[in-house]
């Protein structure tokens, strides 16, 4: 059952999940949720600097999946089936274009982007520092008034999707 806000922007939903494709390399170290509040870390292997935060998060028990280029693949096989069962925080590192696509799609499942970090992370200059920041942010309550962005980030970006606060009437 979609909520009123989920209908505003978004797509797909309402159908059962199918077989999964492989997204190597993937580190599904432990059950989802073992890495604190983060249900999944998703990264694009073609984005420079995405691998190290992925490894760091896998070591800390976060389920990690990767893909190459087309964000439609993890959307179809991982994210949409997961969010259809209920909103859960998901972080990732992709290009800005992929994040834009995910924002458009996630809204219908009550999810919105709560954090965007241009990579490499400012000050430290280290992409792997994004892992700590994403984990910390995932433990925070989502802000209110989250909406999909209409602007596309350029270059690699670390992001966090959180359930939309104050959803529905």
């Amino acid at each position, binding site marked *: 059952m*979609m909520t*009123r*806000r989920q*209908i*505003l*922007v*978004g*797509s*797909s*939903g*309402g*159908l*059962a*999940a*199918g*077989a999964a*494709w*492989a997204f190597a390399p993937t580190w599904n170290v432990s059950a989802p949720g073992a890495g604190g509040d983060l249900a999944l870390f998703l990264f694009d292997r*073609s984005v420079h600097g995405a691998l190290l935060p992925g490894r760091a998060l896998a070591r800390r028990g976060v389920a990690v999946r990767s893909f*190459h*280029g*087309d*964000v*439609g*693949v993890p*959307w*179809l096989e991982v994210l*949409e089936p997961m969010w259809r069962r209920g909103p859960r925080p998901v972080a990732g590192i992709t*290009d800005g*274009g*992929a994040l*834009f*696509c995910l924002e*458009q*799609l996630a*809204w*219908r499942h009550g999810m919105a982007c709560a954090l965007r970090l241009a990579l490499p992370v400012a000050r430290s200059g280290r992409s792997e520092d994004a892992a700590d920041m994403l984990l910390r942010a995932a433990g925070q309550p989502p802000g209110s*008034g989250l*909406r*999909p962005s*209409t*602007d*596309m980030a*350029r270059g690699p970006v670390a992001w966090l999707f959180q359930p939309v606060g104050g959803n*529905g*009437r």
Partner: protein
Amino acid sequence: MRLPHDVTPEMFDRALKGFRDAVGPEWVFTSDEDVALYRDAYSPFWDEPEERVASAAVAPANVEQVQACVRVANQTSLPVYPISTGKNLGYGGSAPALSGSCVLDLKRMDRVLDVDEANASVLVEPGVSYFDLYRAVRDAGAKLWVDCPDPGWGSPIGNALDRGGGYTRAQFRNHFDAHCGMEVVLPTGELMRTGMGAMPGARTWQQYKPGFGPWVDGLFSQSNFGVVTKMGFWMMPEPEACLIGRVYANRYEDLPALLRILTHLENSGIVNGMPGLGSPLLQRRVPADPQASDPYGATGIDQALQDAFYAGDDKARALIADRVKQTGRSCWNALVKFYGPEKLVRLQWEIAKEAFADIEGLRAGDPEFYGFPLSDEDLAKVHKPTFGIPSLSVFNFGIRTDHQPELAVGHQAFSPVIPRTGEAIFESNRLFAQVLKEEGLPVPPFHLPGCVWERAIMMITIFPVTRDAETNRKYRKAIQRLVVEAARRGWGEYRTPVIYQDLVMGTYSFGDHALRRFHETVKDALDPNGILSPGRYGIWPRRNRG
């Protein structure tokens, strides 16, 4: 908030009350932050007074609620603008053609009503996306392929009604032609079914298209004559195999012959998948070629070579011939696809090679061969829509081009239909380059067209949309000029963002705009109050015509 010029705030309030009564208050959206979500993220008029924006949105859950909303619109004169998934980015998004219209958001109508493997057909509602349909077919265990356009998040109904195209066999990749039967809420609120669906209890709604009497389905594509609430589609049975072959020609002057042979092979049913054209020498990607779609691997542009491809004179041809010798790369390639039993596709490839051998020095590459289901390794590398799998790769990469220095946030397409000849490809490239130069804009690399349609080609050129008004103005002006200049040569656009629809409709002017006047006559007859998508595809109701 903006309202149409002839809708007062009192009329608007009455309409909202009617919508709330029809669908429940939680499905009527009026707050600024909610309505803003219906802005077109790719609008070339972003934040300018001319940007098309909605006044509100209403999301019905079923056909009866759609009918009720349409009746409310008639009673209050507030125009409604139906959208399916609302993600037709690059051609309009979910923003209405007339600012102040209320978006009629059909995303809640998201049921796949039937998957019929024996008939190779489906029946869907407008809120179903290609991702949804793919999953529903897979879950049903049906060996059917979904012919997907570039946006996997799009709606089969929305894409077909906009006359979009895909990537598999010709009879499926023309999405409107692949439909079979519609259910339509007319602007009066009346419900109609077309084809065999007009017969109560029809057993062949998704099996026989025309029904009895005039075949009216086309009236509901690229128009504003009704709200399509169900649509049947014929699906492609999963083939035993797919073979993708490439042939390579070395001389610049070979392109016309290459295309002539390719077209004949396709029209003869030998090549039954979507063909592609490319230039290895230019390192341009072959349409629908998976290996070259990743911009991270792109190399710089050889400007002298680009200039030579545009010029095409003797000096240019000599330079191109030298580069072919130096690099060992051919000037052109054609990609041909075959779907069917393994024995047949291998035979079709042999026949195709024989036909192409008429071109002097032509070379055939080793073909790619795929059986199904695809292996994980193949899935990771292939162009997914070629295999009936939805994708978003264009929206990942579409904004990044090495000849566009602007900070692009989206794209807009100039998409004229030109003859399926090499000569037309040369001429159109030269015209586009000339116009862009004159407008002071970067000239894109010489490009080759998509071959979605069987007897014409679409010379799609993608332009950036930015958040800088002056840059957007320049590109709008260039596109407007291109529309006009193309029309002078007999090339018309197949589809366009809403802001150019009046201009494009104006170029279809035979008989002193007889076609537009016909559209207006139909519009006034079906929608006397002018409440359904005023201005969509350049069709304005009487109340909005000057």
